[in-house]
């Protein structure tokens, strides 16, 4: 499969990851693009011993880390009403509340929830991406879920 096709298959998830973690469209777009640029250079070293998505999100995570060091998260979260979310099981009002609740959490919580509960990664995969133990990540995820429930309940 061509690299472009691989990227195309992951573009939406990658953008969603950045958008939900960073909180604004412009930065999310730039970070998504930067991740794919880096992946072009790193593709030659990809040995296929992990899933492509795990490999790509590992790069995304490093891009995010560098951006955060450059002050990315000092900017306020701006939910963009133009980025429509498909109404799935939840209605538009519920969805908006969920978005607000998620946006009110800290970056670490958002990242854990986005990767597991939104994008469907296994906790052990995310632990590998974050370079922490699976048990540590499970605790982090559990706490993030509790805080999200609390924020959603308050909303």
């Amino acid at each position, binding site marked *: 499969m061509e690299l472009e096709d691989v990227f195309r298959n992951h*573009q939406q998830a*990658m953008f969603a990851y950045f958008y*939900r973690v960073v909180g604004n469209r412009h930065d999310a*777009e730039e970070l998504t*693009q930067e991740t794919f640029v880096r992946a072009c250079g790193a593709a030659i070293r990809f040995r296929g011993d992990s899933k492509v998505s795990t490999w790509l999100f590992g790069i995304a995570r490093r891009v995010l880390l560098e951006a955060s060091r450059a002050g990315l998260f000092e900017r306020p979260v701006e939910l963009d009403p133009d980025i429509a979310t*498909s109404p799935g099981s939840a209605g538009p009002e519920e969805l908006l509340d*969920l*978005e607000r609740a998620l946006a009110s959490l800290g970056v670490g919580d958002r990242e854990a929830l986005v990767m597991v509960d939104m994008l469907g990664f296994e906790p052990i995969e995310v632990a590998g991406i974050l370079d922490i133990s699976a048990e540590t990540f499970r605790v982090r995820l559990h706490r993030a879920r509790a805080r999200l*429930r609390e924020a959603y309940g308050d909303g």
Partner: protein
Amino acid sequence: MDNQPPLDLRSLGEVDSPEVIRAALASFRRRVVVRSLWAMLALLVGAAAIYALAWSPNTVRDQIQGATIAAWPERGAWDVDGARVVLLEVADLGEGTVGLQFAVAPDQRGHPWYGDELHPAGTLQSVGYGLERYFEVKAPIDGRIEVRVLRHGTWGNGSADASFTIDLPALGVPSDIWR
């Protein structure tokens, strides 16, 4: 840990994503080109540095050939016991020193020269290549340099000394070279 199911966030992942892949591929190609250019530039600079280092004037010959202020007198020739010594170049080597380049024509009687026969006064260093001799000497106050010629055992019996004097002003060598 409680057993409450997590809130369903999957719908939040269904966002309209912008097209970034073509821009990313173009950006990657641009970076490759820019990095290649930088790498080539670094190689060129490195090669130039090595070249410059390899060609830095290490010997008195290099110094004379690399001197920016020099003169090539046309009448500087002396016959010394059958051999002909020609002054080819006078160069300002800075710090009160002058470079002299001689050519020594083979002795008309076929006797060889071995390279240590010429001894200009005030010699600081010298080197010889084939028929050429290069000297760094202290700058003469009056523009005159006496050159002794030692013919120690190259022919005949024992040494035979001779000498001649280089009169730089008389040869038309500008004083800013030898003062």
